[in-house]
Protein backbone atom coordinates (compact mmCIF):
# COMPACT_ATOMS: atom_id res chain seq x y z
CA UNK A 1 0.00 0.00 0.00
CA UNK A 2 1.51 3.28 -1.04
CA UNK A 3 1.60 6.28 1.22
CA UNK A 4 -0.98 8.10 -0.89
CA UNK A 5 -3.47 5.31 -0.36
CA UNK A 6 -2.97 5.23 3.40
CA UNK A 7 -3.49 8.95 3.50
CA UNK A 8 -6.66 8.51 1.49
CA UNK A 9 -7.83 5.80 3.88
CA UNK A 10 -7.17 8.05 6.88
CA UNK A 11 -9.09 10.92 5.34
CA UNK A 12 -12.00 8.67 4.50
CA UNK A 13 -12.12 7.33 8.02
CA UNK A 14 -12.03 10.85 9.41
CA UNK A 15 -14.92 11.95 7.22
CA UNK A 16 -16.87 8.80 8.08
CA UNK A 17 -16.60 9.71 11.74
CA UNK A 18 -18.48 12.90 10.99
CA UNK A 19 -21.11 11.41 8.79
CA UNK A 20 -22.15 8.73 11.27
CA UNK A 21 -24.35 9.99 14.08
CA UNK A 22 -25.83 13.39 14.61
CA UNK A 23 -23.11 15.21 12.72
CA UNK A 24 -24.75 14.45 9.41
CA UNK A 25 -26.98 16.77 7.35
CA UNK A 26 -27.18 20.44 8.01
CA UNK A 27 -24.62 20.77 10.79
CA UNK A 28 -21.72 18.97 9.14
CA UNK A 29 -20.22 22.34 8.22
CA UNK A 30 -20.49 23.39 11.85
CA UNK A 31 -18.81 20.21 13.00
CA UNK A 32 -15.88 20.50 10.61
CA UNK A 33 -15.38 24.19 11.37
CA UNK A 34 -15.54 23.46 15.08
CA UNK A 35 -13.02 20.64 14.69
CA UNK A 36 -10.50 22.84 12.92
CA UNK A 37 -11.10 25.68 15.39
CA UNK A 38 -10.46 23.38 18.30
CA UNK A 39 -7.24 22.04 16.82
CA UNK A 40 -5.95 25.57 16.27
CA UNK A 41 -7.04 26.48 19.77
CA UNK A 42 -5.09 23.61 21.33
CA UNK A 43 -2.02 24.48 19.31
CA UNK A 44 -2.19 28.15 20.27
CA UNK A 45 -2.66 27.25 23.92
CA UNK A 46 0.39 24.99 23.83
CA UNK A 47 2.42 27.93 22.52
CA UNK A 48 2.02 29.47 25.97
CA UNK A 49 4.64 27.10 27.27
CA UNK A 50 7.20 29.41 25.65
CA UNK A 51 6.89 31.60 28.73
CA UNK A 52 8.93 28.94 30.57
CA UNK A 53 11.26 27.62 27.89
CA UNK A 54 11.28 27.94 24.11
CA UNK A 55 12.84 24.59 23.01
CA UNK A 56 10.51 22.62 25.27
CA UNK A 57 7.60 24.60 23.85
CA UNK A 58 8.50 23.55 20.31
CA UNK A 59 8.64 19.87 21.35
CA UNK A 60 5.36 20.19 23.21
CA UNK A 61 3.78 21.87 20.20
CA UNK A 62 4.77 19.03 17.89
CA UNK A 63 3.56 16.41 20.37
CA UNK A 64 0.23 18.11 20.92
CA UNK A 65 -0.33 18.53 17.19
CA UNK A 66 0.41 14.85 16.59
CA UNK A 67 -1.89 13.76 19.43
CA UNK A 68 -4.72 16.03 18.33
CA UNK A 69 -4.52 14.75 14.76
CA UNK A 70 -4.35 11.15 15.95
CA UNK A 71 -7.45 11.48 18.14
CA UNK A 72 -9.46 13.43 15.57
CA UNK A 73 -12.33 14.16 15.44
CA UNK A 74 -11.96 15.86 18.79
CA UNK A 75 -15.22 17.77 18.44
CA UNK A 76 -17.24 14.69 19.45
CA UNK A 77 -15.47 14.58 22.81
CA UNK A 78 -15.79 18.33 23.24
CA UNK A 79 -19.50 18.05 22.66
CA UNK A 80 -19.78 15.19 25.13
CA UNK A 81 -17.91 17.14 27.78
CA UNK A 82 -20.18 20.13 27.23
CA UNK A 83 -23.37 18.11 27.62
CA UNK A 84 -25.96 19.67 29.87
CA UNK A 85 -25.96 16.53 31.99
CA UNK A 86 -25.97 17.39 35.69
CA UNK A 87 -23.33 14.79 36.50
CA UNK A 88 -20.92 16.27 33.93
CA UNK A 89 -21.11 19.66 35.61
CA UNK A 90 -20.85 18.04 39.04
CA UNK A 91 -17.72 16.25 37.90
CA UNK A 92 -16.05 19.55 37.07
CA UNK A 93 -17.27 20.96 40.36
CA UNK A 94 -15.69 18.06 42.30
CA UNK A 95 -12.41 18.64 40.47
CA UNK A 96 -12.63 22.32 41.38
CA UNK A 97 -13.15 21.54 45.06
CA UNK A 98 -10.30 19.04 44.93
CA UNK A 99 -8.03 21.84 43.73
CA UNK A 100 -9.17 24.12 46.57
CA UNK A 101 -8.59 21.40 49.17
CA UNK A 102 -5.17 20.62 47.66
CA UNK A 103 -4.19 24.28 48.00
CA UNK A 104 -5.38 24.27 51.60
CA UNK A 105 -3.40 21.21 52.60
CA UNK A 106 -0.33 22.21 50.61
CA UNK A 107 -0.20 25.74 51.94
CA UNK A 108 -1.13 24.90 55.51
Amino acid sequence: MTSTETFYEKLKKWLDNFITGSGYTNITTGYITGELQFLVFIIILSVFFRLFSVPLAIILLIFITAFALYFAPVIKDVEKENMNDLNRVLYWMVIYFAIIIAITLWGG
Partner: protein
Amino acid sequence: MIESISNLWSIPLLVIIPMLTAIIVNFLYDKAIKPIAISSAIIILIISIISPYGYHWFCGHPALNPETLTFTFNPNIFGYKLSLEFIFGPLQHIMIFISSLILLFCVILSTIGLTKHQGPYIALLFLLFMSSAIVIMVNDLYHLWIAVEIGSLIVVGIAAASGTSISHKAALKYGLFSAISGAGLAVSLALVLGLTGFSNISDAIMYLKQFGIGEMSTVLYIAFGFFVLSWMYAGGLAPIHPLKSEVYGASYPHGTALLQAQSKLMLVAIGIIMLRLFGMLPFVKEVMIFLSVITMMIGVIMALIQIDFRWIIAYLIISHSGFVTLGIGLGTQEGLIGGIFQAVNDIIYMTILLLCCEALFYFGGKTSTKEAYDIAKKSPFIATATILGAIAASGIPPFNGFQSEIILIQACLKEGLPEIAVLILMVSVTTFIALLRGIYRIFLKPPELQDQDNSNVDLPKVLIIGIIIFIILSIIIGIYPDIVLRFIIPVVKEVLSI
Protein backbone atom coordinates in the same frame (compact mmCIF):
# COMPACT_ATOMS: atom_id res chain seq x y z
CA MET B 1 -14.95 62.92 44.65
CA ILE B 2 -15.90 64.76 47.82
CA GLU B 3 -16.92 62.42 50.62
CA SER B 4 -19.87 63.78 52.53
CA ILE B 5 -21.88 62.31 55.35
CA SER B 6 -25.25 62.91 53.66
CA ASN B 7 -26.66 60.04 51.67
CA LEU B 8 -27.54 60.23 48.00
CA TRP B 9 -31.27 60.17 47.31
CA SER B 10 -31.22 58.18 44.11
CA ILE B 11 -29.52 54.98 45.32
CA PRO B 12 -32.33 53.81 47.64
CA LEU B 13 -34.86 54.74 44.97
CA LEU B 14 -33.09 52.55 42.42
CA VAL B 15 -33.43 49.63 44.82
CA ILE B 16 -36.83 50.32 46.34
CA ILE B 17 -38.85 51.25 43.25
CA PRO B 18 -38.24 47.87 41.53
CA MET B 19 -39.00 46.07 44.77
CA LEU B 20 -42.25 47.96 45.35
CA THR B 21 -43.29 47.54 41.73
CA ALA B 22 -42.62 43.82 41.99
CA ILE B 23 -44.80 43.54 45.09
CA ILE B 24 -47.64 45.63 43.64
CA VAL B 25 -47.62 44.03 40.20
CA ASN B 26 -47.66 40.56 41.71
CA PHE B 27 -51.12 41.12 43.18
CA LEU B 28 -52.76 43.09 40.40
CA TYR B 29 -55.21 42.07 37.67
CA ASP B 30 -54.44 42.17 33.98
CA LYS B 31 -55.59 45.66 33.11
CA ALA B 32 -53.71 47.50 35.83
CA ILE B 33 -50.39 45.73 35.36
CA LYS B 34 -49.35 47.40 32.14
CA PRO B 35 -49.52 51.10 33.11
CA ILE B 36 -47.95 50.61 36.53
CA ALA B 37 -45.08 48.44 35.28
CA ILE B 38 -44.29 50.64 32.30
CA SER B 39 -44.47 53.87 34.27
CA SER B 40 -42.20 52.61 37.00
CA ALA B 41 -39.72 51.32 34.40
CA ILE B 42 -39.72 54.81 32.86
CA ILE B 43 -39.19 56.36 36.31
CA ILE B 44 -36.20 54.07 36.90
CA LEU B 45 -34.76 55.03 33.51
CA ILE B 46 -35.14 58.74 34.32
CA ILE B 47 -33.56 58.32 37.76
CA SER B 48 -30.61 56.46 36.27
CA ILE B 49 -30.07 59.31 33.81
CA ILE B 50 -30.40 62.34 36.08
CA SER B 51 -28.90 60.99 39.28
CA PRO B 52 -25.80 62.79 40.62
CA TYR B 53 -22.80 60.84 41.84
CA GLY B 54 -22.44 59.95 45.50
CA TYR B 55 -22.61 57.40 48.30
CA HIS B 56 -25.17 55.73 50.50
CA TRP B 57 -24.17 54.31 53.89
CA PHE B 58 -26.05 51.86 56.08
CA CYS B 59 -24.21 51.26 59.34
CA GLY B 60 -20.88 51.81 61.03
CA HIS B 61 -18.05 49.89 62.59
CA PRO B 62 -14.96 50.97 64.51
CA ALA B 63 -12.46 52.76 62.34
CA LEU B 64 -8.91 51.62 61.73
CA ASN B 65 -6.41 54.25 62.84
CA PRO B 66 -3.71 54.33 60.13
CA GLU B 67 -0.95 55.67 62.42
CA THR B 68 -1.22 53.35 65.39
CA LEU B 69 -2.85 50.49 63.51
CA THR B 70 -5.33 49.98 66.33
CA PHE B 71 -9.07 49.99 66.44
CA THR B 72 -10.71 52.97 68.05
CA PHE B 73 -13.88 52.08 69.90
CA ASN B 74 -15.46 55.48 69.89
CA PRO B 75 -19.14 55.60 70.76
CA ASN B 76 -19.48 58.90 68.93
CA ILE B 77 -21.20 58.12 65.63
CA PHE B 78 -18.89 60.31 63.58
CA GLY B 79 -15.89 58.39 64.84
CA TYR B 80 -17.16 55.33 63.02
CA LYS B 81 -16.11 54.51 59.51
CA LEU B 82 -19.37 53.73 57.83
CA SER B 83 -19.06 50.28 56.41
CA LEU B 84 -22.00 49.03 54.37
CA GLU B 85 -22.01 51.37 51.43
CA PHE B 86 -23.35 51.77 47.92
CA ILE B 87 -21.62 53.91 45.32
CA PHE B 88 -23.20 55.62 42.34
CA GLY B 89 -20.34 56.67 40.10
CA PRO B 90 -19.69 56.92 36.36
CA LEU B 91 -19.45 53.15 35.89
CA GLN B 92 -22.74 52.62 37.71
CA HIS B 93 -24.28 55.45 35.68
CA ILE B 94 -23.63 53.86 32.28
CA MET B 95 -24.32 50.27 33.37
CA ILE B 96 -27.59 50.99 35.15
CA PHE B 97 -28.72 53.25 32.29
CA ILE B 98 -28.30 50.46 29.75
CA SER B 99 -29.86 47.76 31.88
CA SER B 100 -32.85 49.98 32.72
CA LEU B 101 -33.29 50.69 29.01
CA ILE B 102 -33.40 46.93 28.42
CA LEU B 103 -35.76 46.56 31.38
CA LEU B 104 -38.20 49.03 29.81
CA PHE B 105 -38.37 47.11 26.52
CA CYS B 106 -38.52 43.78 28.32
CA VAL B 107 -41.47 44.87 30.42
CA ILE B 108 -43.40 46.24 27.43
CA LEU B 109 -42.69 43.14 25.35
CA SER B 110 -43.76 40.82 28.13
CA THR B 111 -47.06 42.69 28.55
CA ILE B 112 -47.66 42.08 24.85
CA GLY B 113 -46.31 38.57 24.51
CA LEU B 114 -47.49 36.80 27.63
CA THR B 115 -51.13 35.94 28.01
CA LYS B 116 -51.25 34.53 31.52
CA HIS B 117 -49.20 34.89 34.71
CA GLN B 118 -48.10 38.31 33.52
CA GLY B 119 -47.87 39.82 36.98
CA PRO B 120 -45.39 37.43 38.61
CA TYR B 121 -43.22 37.39 35.50
CA ILE B 122 -42.94 41.18 35.40
CA ALA B 123 -42.24 41.15 39.13
CA LEU B 124 -39.35 38.78 38.47
CA LEU B 125 -38.02 41.08 35.74
CA PHE B 126 -38.02 44.03 38.13
CA LEU B 127 -36.30 42.01 40.85
CA LEU B 128 -33.67 40.89 38.34
CA PHE B 129 -32.98 44.51 37.49
CA MET B 130 -32.78 45.27 41.21
CA SER B 131 -30.19 42.56 41.84
CA SER B 132 -28.06 43.72 38.93
CA ALA B 133 -28.30 47.35 40.09
CA ILE B 134 -27.23 46.34 43.60
CA VAL B 135 -24.33 44.22 42.41
CA ILE B 136 -22.86 47.02 40.34
CA MET B 137 -23.31 49.67 43.04
CA VAL B 138 -22.11 47.64 45.98
CA ASN B 139 -18.90 48.26 47.91
CA ASP B 140 -19.27 45.72 50.70
CA LEU B 141 -19.20 41.96 50.78
CA TYR B 142 -22.54 41.59 52.57
CA HIS B 143 -24.64 43.26 49.90
CA LEU B 144 -22.58 41.62 47.19
CA TRP B 145 -23.49 38.22 48.59
CA ILE B 146 -27.16 39.14 48.97
CA ALA B 147 -27.30 40.45 45.40
CA VAL B 148 -25.69 37.31 43.98
CA GLU B 149 -28.01 35.01 45.97
CA ILE B 150 -31.19 36.90 45.09
CA GLY B 151 -30.05 37.26 41.50
CA SER B 152 -29.57 33.53 41.09
CA LEU B 153 -32.97 32.81 42.66
CA ILE B 154 -34.60 35.24 40.22
CA VAL B 155 -32.76 33.64 37.31
CA VAL B 156 -34.25 30.31 38.39
CA GLY B 157 -37.71 31.90 38.40
CA ILE B 158 -37.37 33.51 34.99
CA ALA B 159 -36.03 30.33 33.44
CA ALA B 160 -38.91 28.32 34.91
CA ALA B 161 -41.46 30.89 33.75
CA SER B 162 -41.00 29.81 30.15
CA GLY B 163 -43.01 26.72 31.05
CA THR B 164 -41.45 23.95 28.97
CA SER B 165 -39.88 20.90 30.55
CA ILE B 166 -36.43 21.93 29.26
CA SER B 167 -36.75 25.24 31.07
CA HIS B 168 -37.87 23.51 34.27
CA LYS B 169 -34.85 21.25 34.12
CA ALA B 170 -32.52 24.17 33.43
CA ALA B 171 -34.04 26.06 36.35
CA LEU B 172 -33.64 23.10 38.71
CA LYS B 173 -29.99 22.62 37.76
CA TYR B 174 -29.28 26.30 38.15
CA GLY B 175 -31.07 26.34 41.50
CA LEU B 176 -29.11 23.39 42.86
CA PHE B 177 -25.86 25.09 41.92
CA SER B 178 -27.00 28.42 43.31
CA ALA B 179 -27.08 26.63 46.66
CA ILE B 180 -23.47 25.48 46.31
CA SER B 181 -22.05 28.71 44.96
CA GLY B 182 -24.02 30.90 47.37
CA ALA B 183 -22.68 28.88 50.28
CA GLY B 184 -19.19 29.21 48.80
CA LEU B 185 -19.50 32.97 48.52
CA ALA B 186 -20.71 33.14 52.13
CA VAL B 187 -17.68 31.09 53.22
CA SER B 188 -15.31 33.39 51.35
CA LEU B 189 -17.08 36.41 52.88
CA ALA B 190 -16.54 34.83 56.30
CA LEU B 191 -12.84 34.21 55.54
CA VAL B 192 -12.20 37.78 54.39
CA LEU B 193 -14.15 39.08 57.38
CA GLY B 194 -12.14 36.88 59.73
CA LEU B 195 -8.82 37.92 58.16
CA THR B 196 -9.38 41.65 58.08
CA GLY B 197 -12.36 42.36 60.30
CA PHE B 198 -13.95 44.53 57.62
CA SER B 199 -16.90 43.88 55.43
CA ASN B 200 -16.32 47.04 53.45
CA ILE B 201 -14.13 46.15 50.49
CA SER B 202 -12.11 49.36 50.44
CA ASP B 203 -11.39 49.02 54.15
CA ALA B 204 -10.42 45.36 53.75
CA ILE B 205 -8.01 46.27 50.94
CA MET B 206 -6.52 49.06 53.06
CA TYR B 207 -6.05 46.59 55.90
CA LEU B 208 -4.39 44.01 53.64
CA LYS B 209 -2.08 46.68 52.18
CA GLN B 210 -1.09 47.96 55.63
CA PHE B 211 -0.60 44.71 57.50
CA GLY B 212 0.46 42.49 54.63
CA ILE B 213 -0.79 38.94 54.32
CA GLY B 214 2.15 37.05 55.77
CA GLU B 215 1.21 33.58 56.93
CA MET B 216 -2.42 33.90 55.96
CA SER B 217 -2.05 33.77 52.19
CA THR B 218 -3.54 30.25 52.16
CA VAL B 219 -6.75 31.58 53.66
CA LEU B 220 -6.87 34.31 51.05
CA TYR B 221 -6.36 31.71 48.32
CA ILE B 222 -9.31 29.68 49.61
CA ALA B 223 -11.43 32.83 49.70
CA PHE B 224 -10.30 33.53 46.13
CA GLY B 225 -11.26 30.00 45.10
CA PHE B 226 -14.80 30.38 46.37
CA PHE B 227 -15.02 33.84 44.84
CA VAL B 228 -14.02 32.43 41.47
CA LEU B 229 -16.64 29.71 41.88
CA SER B 230 -19.41 32.27 42.30
CA TRP B 231 -17.92 34.33 39.47
CA MET B 232 -17.99 31.34 37.13
CA TYR B 233 -21.50 30.51 38.20
CA ALA B 234 -23.00 34.00 38.02
CA GLY B 235 -21.35 34.84 34.71
CA GLY B 236 -21.50 31.42 33.10
CA LEU B 237 -17.78 30.80 32.61
CA ALA B 238 -16.26 27.42 31.72
CA PRO B 239 -16.25 24.67 32.96
CA ILE B 240 -19.73 25.12 34.46
CA HIS B 241 -21.13 27.11 31.53
CA PRO B 242 -23.72 24.46 30.47
CA LEU B 243 -25.92 25.66 33.35
CA LYS B 244 -26.00 29.25 32.22
CA SER B 245 -26.24 28.57 28.49
CA GLU B 246 -29.19 26.30 29.14
CA VAL B 247 -30.90 29.06 31.12
CA TYR B 248 -30.25 31.54 28.28
CA GLY B 249 -31.61 29.20 25.68
CA ALA B 250 -34.64 28.02 27.62
CA SER B 251 -36.16 31.30 28.81
CA TYR B 252 -38.05 33.79 26.63
CA PRO B 253 -35.71 35.81 24.40
CA HIS B 254 -36.68 39.15 25.90
CA GLY B 255 -36.06 37.67 29.35
CA THR B 256 -32.68 36.46 28.11
CA ALA B 257 -31.84 40.03 27.09
CA LEU B 258 -32.20 41.14 30.71
CA LEU B 259 -30.54 37.97 32.00
CA GLN B 260 -27.43 38.49 29.92
CA ALA B 261 -27.27 42.16 30.94
CA GLN B 262 -27.41 41.05 34.57
CA SER B 263 -24.74 38.42 34.15
CA LYS B 264 -22.39 40.86 32.39
CA LEU B 265 -22.90 43.30 35.27
CA MET B 266 -22.14 40.50 37.73
CA LEU B 267 -18.98 39.60 35.81
CA VAL B 268 -17.75 43.20 35.83
CA ALA B 269 -18.63 43.86 39.48
CA ILE B 270 -17.29 40.61 40.97
CA GLY B 271 -14.26 40.70 38.65
CA ILE B 272 -13.24 44.20 39.74
CA ILE B 273 -13.75 43.27 43.39
CA MET B 274 -11.59 40.16 42.92
CA LEU B 275 -8.91 42.15 41.17
CA ARG B 276 -8.84 44.70 44.00
CA LEU B 277 -8.96 42.18 46.86
CA PHE B 278 -6.69 39.42 45.57
CA GLY B 279 -4.74 41.19 42.81
CA MET B 280 -1.49 41.19 44.79
CA LEU B 281 -1.44 37.39 45.20
CA PRO B 282 0.61 35.54 42.57
CA PHE B 283 -1.26 33.41 39.98
CA VAL B 284 -4.57 35.22 40.51
CA LYS B 285 -4.57 37.08 37.21
CA GLU B 286 -3.29 33.99 35.40
CA VAL B 287 -6.22 31.95 36.70
CA MET B 288 -8.66 34.61 35.52
CA ILE B 289 -7.06 34.82 32.06
CA PHE B 290 -7.01 31.02 31.73
CA LEU B 291 -10.71 30.74 32.62
CA SER B 292 -11.66 33.45 30.16
CA VAL B 293 -9.64 31.98 27.28
CA ILE B 294 -11.24 28.57 27.81
CA THR B 295 -14.69 30.17 28.00
CA MET B 296 -14.17 32.15 24.81
CA MET B 297 -13.17 29.17 22.75
CA ILE B 298 -15.50 26.52 24.15
CA GLY B 299 -18.48 28.86 23.89
CA VAL B 300 -17.86 29.71 20.27
CA ILE B 301 -17.15 26.09 19.28
CA MET B 302 -20.35 24.94 20.94
CA ALA B 303 -22.21 27.73 19.16
CA LEU B 304 -20.98 26.39 15.84
CA ILE B 305 -22.62 22.99 16.28
CA GLN B 306 -26.03 24.12 17.51
CA ILE B 307 -29.09 23.79 15.34
CA ASP B 308 -31.39 26.25 17.10
CA PHE B 309 -30.97 30.00 16.70
CA ARG B 310 -31.72 30.59 20.38
CA TRP B 311 -29.01 28.16 21.45
CA ILE B 312 -26.51 29.68 19.02
CA ILE B 313 -27.07 33.05 20.67
CA ALA B 314 -26.97 31.47 24.13
CA TYR B 315 -23.54 29.98 23.54
CA LEU B 316 -22.30 33.17 21.88
CA ILE B 317 -23.26 35.13 25.01
CA ILE B 318 -21.15 32.66 27.02
CA SER B 319 -18.29 33.05 24.59
CA HIS B 320 -18.40 36.84 24.62
CA SER B 321 -18.44 37.03 28.39
CA GLY B 322 -14.96 35.52 28.02
CA PHE B 323 -13.87 38.84 26.47
CA VAL B 324 -15.11 40.76 29.49
CA THR B 325 -13.31 38.53 31.97
CA LEU B 326 -10.18 38.53 29.82
CA GLY B 327 -9.99 42.32 30.01
CA ILE B 328 -10.48 42.27 33.77
CA GLY B 329 -8.02 39.41 34.22
CA LEU B 330 -5.27 41.28 32.38
CA GLY B 331 -5.40 43.87 35.12
CA THR B 332 -3.78 46.67 33.15
CA GLN B 333 -5.42 49.97 32.33
CA GLU B 334 -6.11 49.11 28.70
CA GLY B 335 -7.33 45.66 29.68
CA LEU B 336 -9.81 46.96 32.24
CA ILE B 337 -11.08 49.66 29.89
CA GLY B 338 -11.47 47.11 27.11
CA GLY B 339 -13.21 44.60 29.37
CA ILE B 340 -15.76 47.00 30.78
CA PHE B 341 -16.36 48.62 27.39
CA GLN B 342 -16.82 45.16 25.91
CA ALA B 343 -19.44 44.43 28.58
CA VAL B 344 -21.42 47.53 27.54
CA ASN B 345 -21.12 46.70 23.85
CA ASP B 346 -21.95 43.08 24.42
CA ILE B 347 -25.17 43.94 26.21
CA ILE B 348 -26.20 46.16 23.30
CA TYR B 349 -25.52 43.89 20.34
CA MET B 350 -26.73 40.73 22.05
CA THR B 351 -29.95 42.60 22.81
CA ILE B 352 -30.38 43.33 19.08
CA LEU B 353 -29.96 39.64 18.27
CA LEU B 354 -32.28 38.54 21.08
CA LEU B 355 -35.02 41.00 20.08
CA CYS B 356 -34.79 39.65 16.52
CA CYS B 357 -35.09 36.17 17.98
CA GLU B 358 -38.17 37.38 19.86
CA ALA B 359 -39.60 38.54 16.53
CA LEU B 360 -39.26 34.99 15.18
CA PHE B 361 -41.79 33.93 17.81
CA TYR B 362 -44.44 35.97 16.02
CA PHE B 363 -43.80 33.96 12.83
CA GLY B 364 -44.94 30.68 14.31
CA GLY B 365 -42.47 30.31 17.16
CA LYS B 366 -39.97 28.17 15.31
CA THR B 367 -36.33 29.12 15.85
CA SER B 368 -34.74 25.84 14.85
CA THR B 369 -32.76 25.89 11.64
CA LYS B 370 -34.55 22.72 10.58
CA GLU B 371 -38.06 24.11 10.86
CA ALA B 372 -38.01 27.83 10.15
CA TYR B 373 -37.23 29.18 6.69
CA ASP B 374 -37.81 32.06 4.34
CA ILE B 375 -38.59 34.64 6.99
CA ALA B 376 -36.77 37.34 4.97
CA LYS B 377 -39.59 37.40 2.44
CA LYS B 378 -42.15 37.92 5.18
CA SER B 379 -40.21 40.55 7.06
CA PRO B 380 -37.15 42.10 5.41
CA PHE B 381 -36.70 44.41 8.38
CA ILE B 382 -36.02 41.61 10.85
CA ALA B 383 -33.62 39.92 8.45
CA THR B 384 -31.66 43.15 7.97
CA ALA B 385 -31.60 43.82 11.68
CA THR B 386 -30.33 40.33 12.45
CA ILE B 387 -27.55 40.68 9.89
CA LEU B 388 -26.60 44.07 11.35
CA GLY B 389 -26.56 42.50 14.82
CA ALA B 390 -24.36 39.69 13.56
CA ILE B 391 -21.95 42.22 12.03
CA ALA B 392 -21.87 44.16 15.29
CA ALA B 393 -21.27 40.99 17.27
CA SER B 394 -18.38 39.91 15.10
CA GLY B 395 -16.52 43.15 15.56
CA ILE B 396 -16.76 44.79 12.15
CA PRO B 397 -16.59 48.59 11.97
CA PRO B 398 -18.54 50.90 12.17
CA PHE B 399 -20.36 48.95 14.87
CA ASN B 400 -19.51 48.99 18.54
CA GLY B 401 -18.02 45.51 18.86
CA PHE B 402 -15.00 46.66 16.87
CA GLN B 403 -14.03 49.46 19.26
CA SER B 404 -13.79 47.34 22.38
CA GLU B 405 -12.16 44.38 20.68
CA ILE B 406 -9.39 46.59 19.26
CA ILE B 407 -8.71 47.92 22.77
CA LEU B 408 -8.57 44.37 24.10
CA ILE B 409 -6.21 43.25 21.32
CA GLN B 410 -3.92 46.20 22.01
CA ALA B 411 -3.95 45.39 25.72
CA CYS B 412 -2.98 41.78 25.02
CA LEU B 413 -0.15 42.83 22.70
CA LYS B 414 1.12 45.30 25.30
CA GLU B 415 1.18 42.54 27.92
CA GLY B 416 3.25 40.36 25.60
CA LEU B 417 0.52 37.82 24.90
CA PRO B 418 0.01 37.88 21.12
CA GLU B 419 -1.60 34.43 21.19
CA ILE B 420 -4.60 35.76 23.06
CA ALA B 421 -4.94 38.54 20.48
CA VAL B 422 -5.04 35.84 17.79
CA LEU B 423 -7.68 33.98 19.79
CA ILE B 424 -9.82 37.12 20.05
CA LEU B 425 -9.70 37.49 16.28
CA MET B 426 -10.58 33.82 15.84
CA VAL B 427 -13.56 34.14 18.14
CA SER B 428 -14.80 37.22 16.28
CA VAL B 429 -14.62 35.50 12.92
CA THR B 430 -16.19 32.30 14.21
CA THR B 431 -19.00 34.31 15.79
CA PHE B 432 -19.83 35.58 12.32
CA ILE B 433 -19.72 32.07 10.85
CA ALA B 434 -21.94 30.62 13.57
CA LEU B 435 -24.49 33.40 13.25
CA LEU B 436 -24.44 33.31 9.46
CA ARG B 437 -25.28 29.61 9.44
CA GLY B 438 -28.39 30.29 11.47
CA ILE B 439 -29.29 33.43 9.52
CA TYR B 440 -28.98 31.69 6.17
CA ARG B 441 -31.11 28.72 7.26
CA ILE B 442 -33.83 30.77 8.88
CA PHE B 443 -34.08 33.88 6.77
CA LEU B 444 -32.77 33.18 3.32
CA LYS B 445 -33.33 29.49 2.56
CA PRO B 446 -36.23 29.06 0.10
CA PRO B 447 -39.18 27.00 1.30
CA GLU B 448 -39.14 23.32 0.45
CA LEU B 449 -42.91 23.05 0.12
CA GLN B 450 -44.97 25.51 -1.86
CA ASP B 451 -48.05 25.41 0.37
CA GLN B 452 -46.68 28.16 2.60
CA ASP B 453 -49.24 30.65 3.85
CA ASN B 454 -48.16 34.15 2.95
CA SER B 455 -50.36 35.85 5.49
CA ASN B 456 -48.96 39.05 6.93
CA VAL B 457 -47.77 39.01 10.52
CA ASP B 458 -48.06 42.20 12.55
CA LEU B 459 -45.00 42.69 14.65
CA PRO B 460 -45.54 44.85 17.73
CA LYS B 461 -44.37 48.42 17.19
CA VAL B 462 -42.33 48.34 20.40
CA LEU B 463 -40.22 45.50 19.14
CA ILE B 464 -39.33 47.36 15.96
CA ILE B 465 -38.66 50.58 17.88
CA GLY B 466 -36.45 48.69 20.33
CA ILE B 467 -34.41 47.04 17.60
CA ILE B 468 -33.96 50.40 15.85
CA ILE B 469 -32.91 52.14 19.09
CA PHE B 470 -30.32 49.50 19.92
CA ILE B 471 -28.93 49.49 16.36
CA ILE B 472 -28.61 53.28 16.49
CA LEU B 473 -26.88 53.02 19.89
CA SER B 474 -24.54 50.42 18.45
CA ILE B 475 -23.59 52.60 15.48
CA ILE B 476 -23.20 55.75 17.58
CA ILE B 477 -20.92 54.00 20.08
CA GLY B 478 -19.02 52.45 17.20
CA ILE B 479 -18.34 55.84 15.61
CA TYR B 480 -17.89 57.91 18.78
CA PRO B 481 -16.61 55.47 21.44
CA ASP B 482 -15.73 58.40 23.69
CA ILE B 483 -19.33 58.80 24.86
CA VAL B 484 -18.98 55.54 26.75
CA LEU B 485 -15.25 55.65 27.39
CA ARG B 486 -15.46 58.93 29.29
CA PHE B 487 -17.57 57.10 31.89
CA ILE B 488 -15.21 54.15 32.10
CA ILE B 489 -11.71 55.68 32.10
CA PRO B 490 -11.92 57.61 35.42
CA VAL B 491 -13.30 54.52 37.17
CA VAL B 492 -10.46 52.35 35.84
CA LYS B 493 -7.87 54.91 36.96
CA GLU B 494 -9.45 54.98 40.41
CA VAL B 495 -9.50 51.16 40.65
CA LEU B 496 -5.84 50.86 39.67
CA SER B 497 -4.66 53.69 41.90
CA ILE B 498 -5.73 52.06 45.16
